[in-house]
C-alpha cells in the first residue's frame, strides 16, 4: 500500500442526470482491512455513488484516487483491473447454474492448448470448495444450482468469489436489505472475514443496525449531499440512527406522531 494516500479515495464527487443533481461534493475513503459504510435512505444517492466507484458511471465532477493516484474508470472492467469488485444485491449470481460454475464465471480455469482448451472442472470444484470453506461458508455441494441457496448464502458466495479473484476493494450493494435477521448476520460475518483478510470493504446499506457493528467509518448521504462522515469513535448507534433519519426532521416527525396519538385518545 502506498504511504501517501488511501487505497480508494473519492474526492468531491458530483453527478448530474440532466438538470437533476444526483450527487454533490461527496468525499470518502477506505483502506485495507477497514470497512467504510455508506448510509442513506432511498433516493439518497447511494447507488449513484457506488456506480461511480465501480466504473458503471463516470462522475461529472470530483476525482477518484487509487493508492493516491487519480484514475478514470470507463467501464466496470477498468475498476476490476484496479482490484475494485462489486457485489450487487440481486444480480450477483446466475441461479440456474451450479455453485462452482458461478464461482468461476468469466474467469474459468482451463487446461489443454490455447483455443481448444477445456474447462478444468475438477480443479474449479476443488478450489471453490476450499475457498468457501476458508471463508467458513459451508455449502452442501458445489454442483447444486445457486438458485437452491438462500439469499444470504448467495451473497456470501459472491463475496468469497470476489476475495478469491484478488479484490482489494469490495463494494457490497445492500447485501443485507432483502434478508432476514439471521441471514443478514451471516453476510455481516463474511464481510468481516473479508476485512480480516486485508480487503477494503465499502458497505452500502440503509440499515444503521447492520452498519454500526461492522463499520470503521460512516458516510451518511441525504438527497445527494453528504450529511457527514464519522469515525466509529466519534459516533454511537443512537446518533447514527438520528443522523440518518435527518436529525431534526425525525424529532419533528416524532412530535407530530405524538400529537396524533394525543388527538386520537
Amino acid at each position, binding site marked *: 500500500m502506498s504511504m501517501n494516500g488511501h487505497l480508494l479515495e473519492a474526492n468531491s464527487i458530483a453527478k448530474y442526470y440532466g438538470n437533476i443533481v444526483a450527487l454533490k461534493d461527496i468525499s470518502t475513503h477506505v483502506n485495507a482491512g477497514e470497512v467504510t459504510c455508506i448510509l442513506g435512505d432511498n433516493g439518497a444517492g447511494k447507488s449513484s455513488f457506488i456506480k461511480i466507484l465501480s466504473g458503471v458511471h463516470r462522475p461529472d465532477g470530483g476525482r477518484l484516487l487509487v493508492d493516491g493516484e487519480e484514475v478514470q474508470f470507463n467501464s*466496470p*472492467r477498468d475498476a*476490476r483491473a484496479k482490484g475494485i469488485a*462489486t457485489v*450487487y444485491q440481486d*444480480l*450477483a*449470481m*446466475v*441461479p*440456474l*447454474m451450479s455453485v462452482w*460454475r458461478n464461482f*468461476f*464465471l*468469466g*474467469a*474459468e480455469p*482451463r487446461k489443454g492448448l490455447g483455443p481448444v*482448451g*477445456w*474447462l478444468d*472442472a*475438477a480443479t474449479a*470444484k*476443488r478450489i471453490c*470448495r*476450499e475457498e468457501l*470453506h476458508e471463508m467458513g461458508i*459451508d455449502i*452442501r*455441494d458445489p454442483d*447444486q*444450482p445457486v*438458485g*437452491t441457496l438462500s439469499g444470504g448464502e448467495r451473497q456470501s458466495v459472491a463475496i468469497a468469489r470476489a476475495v478469491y479473484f484478488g479484490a482489494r476493494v469490495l463494494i457490497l450493494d445492500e447485501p443485507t436489505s432483502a434478508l432476514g435477521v439471521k441471514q443478514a448476520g451471516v453476510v455481516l460475518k463474511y464481510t468481516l472475514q473479508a476485512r480480516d483478510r486485508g480487503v477494503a470493504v465499502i458497505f452500502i446499506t440503509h440499515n444503521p443496525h447492520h452498519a454500526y457493528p461492522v463499520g470503521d467509518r460512516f458516510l451518511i448521504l441525504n438527497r445527494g449531499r453528504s450529511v457527514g462522515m464519522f469515525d466509529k469513535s466519534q459516533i454511537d448507534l443512537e446518533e447514527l440512527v438520528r443522523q440518518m433519519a435527518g436529525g431534526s426532521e425525525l424529532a419533528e416527525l416524532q412530535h407530530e406522531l405524538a400529537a396524533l396519538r394525543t388527538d386520537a385518545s
Partner: protein
Amino acid sequence: MAETTTAPAPDERLVHVGPLTRILTRPDIGALVGALAIFFVFSYFARSVDWLTDPGITAGWTDQAAQFGIVAVPVALLMIGGEFDLSAGAMVGSSGLLLGYLTVFRDLNIWPAIAIVIVFGLAVGFVNGVVVIWTKLPSFIVTLATFFVLQGVNAALTLNLTGTTAIQEIDKASGFDAARTVFATEITKYDFKVKVLWWIGLTIVGAWLLAKSRFGNWIYSAGGEPVAARNIGVPVARTKIALFMMTSGTAALMGIITALELRSIQAKEGIGNEFLYIICAVVGGCLLTGGYGSVIGTFFGAAMLGMVQLGIIYAEWDSNWTYTFQGAILFAAVLLNTVIRSRAQRAR
C-alpha cells in the same frame, strides 16, 4: 474428481439423493424416455415392417431425424443462451439456392461455392445477432423478420433467375461427386446417410462446448442472468452474436447437404422447419426463458421427430397426422420436463 478435500462432517441438510433422483435431475432424461417410448409404440403400430431390427428402417428415420437434428444443435445452444432464431429454416433454403446459383449460373466449382455459402450463413447470423444486441428487441421478432425477408428473397430471386421455383441440375457442377461424398452420400448397403454422422458429430461438439468449455459457461450465464454475467465480466454480447452465427452457419451447412443430396433445390426448402428445430430443443429440455437445457436431449428430440415422421407412414396412417403428433410430443415433453425439473430441485 477430488472428493477428499477438507471433507466437513456429514451435513444434516444434505439429504441422501438416490441414484434414480440424480439421473432424473438431468435435463435430457425426459427426451431419452420419450424417444424410447415412441420407438416401442411404433414397433407395435408399424408392425407391417420390421421396425425394431431392419437396418433399412433405422436408416430411414435417422435420415429424417438428422434433417432436423443438425440445425437443432445450435438452435438449442442459442435457446440456452436466451435467444431464438426463427430464420434458421428459411436459411436452409437460401443457402441451398445460393449454392445452386453459384454452381449452375456462375459455373463455380462446388468447393469455393460451399465456402461462400458458409460465409453467407455466418454473415446472416452476424446480422441477426448484432441487430438483436443493438436494438435490444426480442430475437423472436428480429429473426421472424429475417425469416420473412429470406422467404421472399428465396421465391422472388429463384423465379427471376430460372423462370420456375427451383434450381435444377446442381450435379453438373465440377467437383459435385466429391462434395456429395462428404456431405450427402449413402454409407453401407442399408442406405444410412452420411448426414447422420454429421448429426452425431455436431451433437458431440455441441454437448462438449456446453459442458466442457468456458464458452459453454458463458452460454448458460448469457441466458440465465445476462446482467449478472456482464457484471462479472462475461462478454455476453459477443457470446450471443457467436451463437447466432453458429445457428445460421449450421443452417447453411444443412442447405448444402440438401442441395447435394437432392441435386436440386426448391425455393420453399426448409420453410416451417424452424419450429421443428425449436421443438427438438424444447423436447430436449431447453427452457424457453434460457439458461437451461441440453444438446444430448435435443438429439433425442430430433430422433423422436424422425421416428414419428417415418413411423406414421409405416403404420399406414394419413401422414397429415404427423403435425398432430409433433404437437402432442411438444406438449407432453414440456409437461414432463417441468415435472422432472421441479422434482429434481426439491430433491436437492
